[in-house]
Structure formats: C-alpha cells, structure tokens
C-alpha cells in the first residue's frame, strides 16, 4: 500500500491543499472555466486517508468536490488544472471541467455535478469486479449532502444484498451549501443508516489522517472480501461552498473553530513530535509541492482552447456519424422553399 507512512500521507495532503489553493488562484485570475469550483481544503485526510488503502485496478466515483480524491489516486495536477481551465489538454479535453473529471486509466469513473449521481455506478463496478474476479473494490465518494438523496439508500441496499466489493465514503464537512448537517436531518449519525441496510459502517475523525487510514483500511479489506462498507469522515469545509460563496450563513467564530480541525497542522504536529520530520524538512517538502503545483497553473494557462470541431465529437462512439450541426441542417432546409 502506497502513502501509508505519516510523511507520505502528509505530503499527499499538502499536495491536495496546495493544488486547491492554486485552483482558487486560477479563478481569481479569471482563467477557470466558470465559478463552479469546489475546493476540498480541510478535507484532505478523507481523500488521502481512504486512497492510501486503495490499489491499482480499484475504481471510484466522486462528487463535485473531488479534486483531492483524484490527486490522491495519482492524477496529474497539470492535466487536472487544464481541465478546470476548460482547455483541450485537460483530462476531458475541456468538455468536463472541475465537476466532470475522469480518467479510466486510474480507475476514476467520474466526478459528478449531480449530488448523489455517481453513487450507483460503484454498485455496477462491483458487479464487474465480481464477474471478472478482479479483486478490485469500487469506492463512491460523496458529501454529507448526498445523504438526502434516495439513490444512496437504493445503492447501499443493493451492495449489501449482493455482498459486493463496494465502499461508500461520506465526506462529512458539516455543510451542504449553506445547510448544516443537523439542519438536513434529525439524526446526523450517518453511519447508522448504512448499518440498518446491513453494511459494515463507522465514522472516523478526519482530524487525524492515520485514524482515517486505519478505519478505511479495515473497511476496504472487508469490502474486498464481500462485506460492503460505509465510512463517514468528519471534517470541516474551511471556505465557502464554491468560489463565490463567502459563507454568510455561519459565524466567524464557528469558522475559526472549524478550521482548527486542520488535518495538515495535526499531521505536522505529529511528525515533529515523533521526530519523523523536522520543521525544516516539512517546510522544504511544502516548498517542493508548491513548485509542482505552480507549474500546473502554467500548464493550464498555456493550454489551447478546444477546437470548435470537437464540439460534435464524442456524443457517440468515434466510428458513428456525428450529430448534424444546426447550421448545416438550416442550409439544407433552405434549399427548399
């Protein structure tokens, strides 16, 4: 299992944090495609802690706040940033953007702009894994808000019924847009629902990435051997819902408290206390990561806009005729009359 020592986990979390900060910059520079950018700052331990126990061949889907998860599964930050900028050299050639990044090579079955939309796909991926006896697990990552969506329960029920190698990971950052989890449900102990459907289920504290690694590791092992699992990870969404949201619905003091649950600072403290890394080591690492992530902005900015000709491509398989452009149709129609 890669990324399982604390220095490795810390580095990966730093990469996520710094990448997200650069996404914010891209937006400020006016070079992102739109403003629907959802940063996972504060949630790094969830992405990194779960992915640490995932293996090559495993598949996953994410929600709209999925940059960190994909990075932790091995994404190239350059191609991610280019996609977020809507450029042709992005993961999806500029068609998808921040909310629709995917990469089949890395098992990323897709981020999703529909809350809950990517969840049932992992049940299907679980069926495939069992069919081919590949030993792969499929993991659905989603937010606490997705617990409002019926399809989560339909999917968990199926996974449990069929004993599929599937895991549901709920990144509970306490908010769905402006709605705090206790304003969205009468029982915020979310894992109890999964238990009631027959899954192995627990909640981990996202402050400590090693706690997440431990919880996720056990549940993923179980899932791999046919006991589907659910893991809620408690954390805090440090900033607004999307780039333009200033979170007026929560108090400064709440935010201050919330941001104390910083998994990077916590890991940093542990690293130094245990003597695994010195402050200087950590600072050097952070600087190295900053250089890597700075480069992603340059890469994205230098990328080409998609060609107009690509517009009609990939609606269907490449061997099929492309849809006829409206203009072409109009010209043909006006040959009549």
């Amino acid at each position, binding site marked *: 299992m890669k990324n399982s020592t604390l220095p490795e986990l810390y580095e990966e979390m730093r990469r996520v944090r710094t990448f997200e900060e650069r996404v914010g910059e891209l937006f400020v520079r006016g070079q992102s495609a739109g403003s*629907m950018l959802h940063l996972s700052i504060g949630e790094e331990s969830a992405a990194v802690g779960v992915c640490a126990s995932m293996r090559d061949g495993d598949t996953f889907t994410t929600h709209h706040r999925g940059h960190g998860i994909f990075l932790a599964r091995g994404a190239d930050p350059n191609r991610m940033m280019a996609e977020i900028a809507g450029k042709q050299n992005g993961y999806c050639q500029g068609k998808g953007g921040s909310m629709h990044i995917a990469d089949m090579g890395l098992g990323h079955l897709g981020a999703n702009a529909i809350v809950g939309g990517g969840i049932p796909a992992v049940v299907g991926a679980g069926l495939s894994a069992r069919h081919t006896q590949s030993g792969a697990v499929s993991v659905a990552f989603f937010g606490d808000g997705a617990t409002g969506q019926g399809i989560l329960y339909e999917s968990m029920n199926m996974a449990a019924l069929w004993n599929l190698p599937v895991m549901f990971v709920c990144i509970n950052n306490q908010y769905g847009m402006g709605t705090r989890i206790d304003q969205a449900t009468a029982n915020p102990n979310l894992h109890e629902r999964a238990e009631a459907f027959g899954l192995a289920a627990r909640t981990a504290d996202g402050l400590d990435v090693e706690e997440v690694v431990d919880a996720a590791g056990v549940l993923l092992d179980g899932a791999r051997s046919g006991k589907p699992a659910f893991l809620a990870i408690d954390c805090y969404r440090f900033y607004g819902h999307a780039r333009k949201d200033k979170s007026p619905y929560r108090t400064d003091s709440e935010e201050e408290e919330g941001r104390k649950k910083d998994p990077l600072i916590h890991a940093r403290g542990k690293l130094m206390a245990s003597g695994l890394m010195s402050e200087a080591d950590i600072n050097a690492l952070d600087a190295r990561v900053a250089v890597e992530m700075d480069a992603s902005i340059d890469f994205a900015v230098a990328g080409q806009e998609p060609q107009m000709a690509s517009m009609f491509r990939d609606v269907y398989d490449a061997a099929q005729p492309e849809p006829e452009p409206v203009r072409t149709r*109009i010209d043909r129609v006006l040959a009549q009359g």
Partner: protein
Amino acid sequence: MAMQEATYRDALRMALSDAMSFDDSVIVMGEEVGRYGGAYGVTKDLIAEFGPERVIDTPISEAAIVGTAVGAAMTGLRPVAELMYVDFIGMTMDQLANQAAKIRYMFGGQIGVPMVLRTQGGTGRSAGAQHSQSLEAFVMHTPGLRLAMPATVDDAYHLLRQAMTQPDPVVFIEHKSLYTMKAPLNPNAEPVGWGQANVLREGDDLVMVTYSRQVHYALAAAQTLQTDHDISAAVVDLRTLNPLDFETIRPLVENAGKAMVISEAVLTCGVAAELAARITEECFDFLEDPVVRVAGEDIPISVSPLLENNSVPTPELIIETAKKMFV
C-alpha cells in the same frame, strides 16, 4: 407601488413576497431557499420576512421536494417549490409527470394540484453538461403540466404571480443568464394575460417565435436585420408554452409567409419541433419556406465557454439564418 427599476431576480422575489403577503397559504420550499437565499438569490431575505415555517429549507432530495409539494397542494397549501437547476428534473419526473400531472385526471376531477415548481435553466455560466440544459420539452410533453418561461422583468413578476393562482401544476423555468437583467417594473400595471403570447416587435417579412432568453437574441437580431439588411422581422414571446397561444402567431405568419422558431433546447424532439410542426399545420398555405428551426445542437453542453456558447442559438446565428431566408 409605482414604476421602479428592477432586475429579473428582484422581480421574481417581489412576486413571491407579494403573493406570500397576500395569501397565507403560499409557502416556498427547496434547497437553500431560506438561510442561503437561493442559489441564484431569488428567495433572498424571504425567510426573514415570512419565517422558516413558510420558507422551508429542505435536504437535497429533489424527488421528495416535488412529492411534498404535491401533497401540500392537495391539502390546501399553495407550495412554490424550487428546483435549483432544471437539470435535476430527472430525479423528479415521476413525482411531476406521474403524480402532479395526472392526479386530477386519474381521480376523475376530484382535486387539482395547484403547485408551482420554480427552476432555472439554460447556458451562460460555464456550468457544464449537468447544469446548463434546457429541458422544457419534457414538461411540454406531459399533459396536465402548465409551463411558463419568462423572458422579461415584467413577466418575471406578473407571470409568476399568475402562476401562483393557477388551479393546475405550473413548471416555471427562469433563465440563469437573465437574473441580472434590469428594466422598469410596475407591479400594479395590468399584466398580459396568462396564456397569451406577446408580440414584442411587429414585422412583415419574417416571424420569429421564441421564449425565455432567446427573446432577447431575437430582438437584437431583428434590430440588426432591419437596420443592416432591410428585413422586417416580428418577434413573438410565447411566455407560456402550455397553454400555447397559437392565435397570436397565426395572423403574423399568414402575413409574412416566413417563420423561424428559436429555442435553446436541443433540436430533436424539442419545443422547436412542436412549434414548427404547428405553424406548418396551421399556416401551410401561407408559407413560402419551410419553418426554420434555430435550436440547440443535439449535443451535451461543454464547460468550455467557447463550446458552450456555440451549442445554443446566438444572435449571429439568427441573423445569418434570417438572411439566408431572403436570398
């Protein structure tokens, strides 16, 4: 209240607020409609004015939001539910099309479902394939559902007020690119009637039939066509697609002999198909050309602004097409 400048967003909020003041049975519900004030700010401050019992923040449960509105409407409330993006209508189509739309009929006319489902659609914010669609055809193809799509500040107010007094379920689709549009508004003026199209520009050579944001594109195009190309185009804003006011369209098309229908929805099986078919059916003897459909491409919407903007009709495409109709 007298004439005042208002945005489309303000006008919508005023309509909600005025209706809620006037009728205690009106409630507003949906994701982020309360404390957050609505994803596009339409319901801003309503919760302060009317309290959380009448401005209800819901979990992210689109199907149950619509289903709850159905039940509330059947038992005496006038729910105005918000679907944050029309793209999420897929999760609600059973509650909308199998329940809301059919209850009056299935139950032999015993009861109606006087609810409004407010939502917004269309391109313009680089929001990608799942947040930029124009899905009004799903609604228009469902008997029992009314469908209103305001293009103007006036209609943002008056059409929404009217929607909230309809005896049957109304899907009310705003356009995300119009929220900041400003115009003078008089809430006390006598509005154009529910179900009536509005001829926003007269014209003898060509009739453009459209709705929602494309009304503005059509008006801009008509202006250029007049000024630069001496083509006189009428522009009809349908305002409601169900009911559909054909009687306003008929004489214009009979007079001009040429018609273009403009819709942001994808072309195939979309609203433009229905409009083109209807105009052809009713005005066949007067048509010099086939009715031309200027509609959304038969593709998903990209996040790339370049591709996004060219996936739906632009004023340029309208002008270019109109010119071709006169060569």
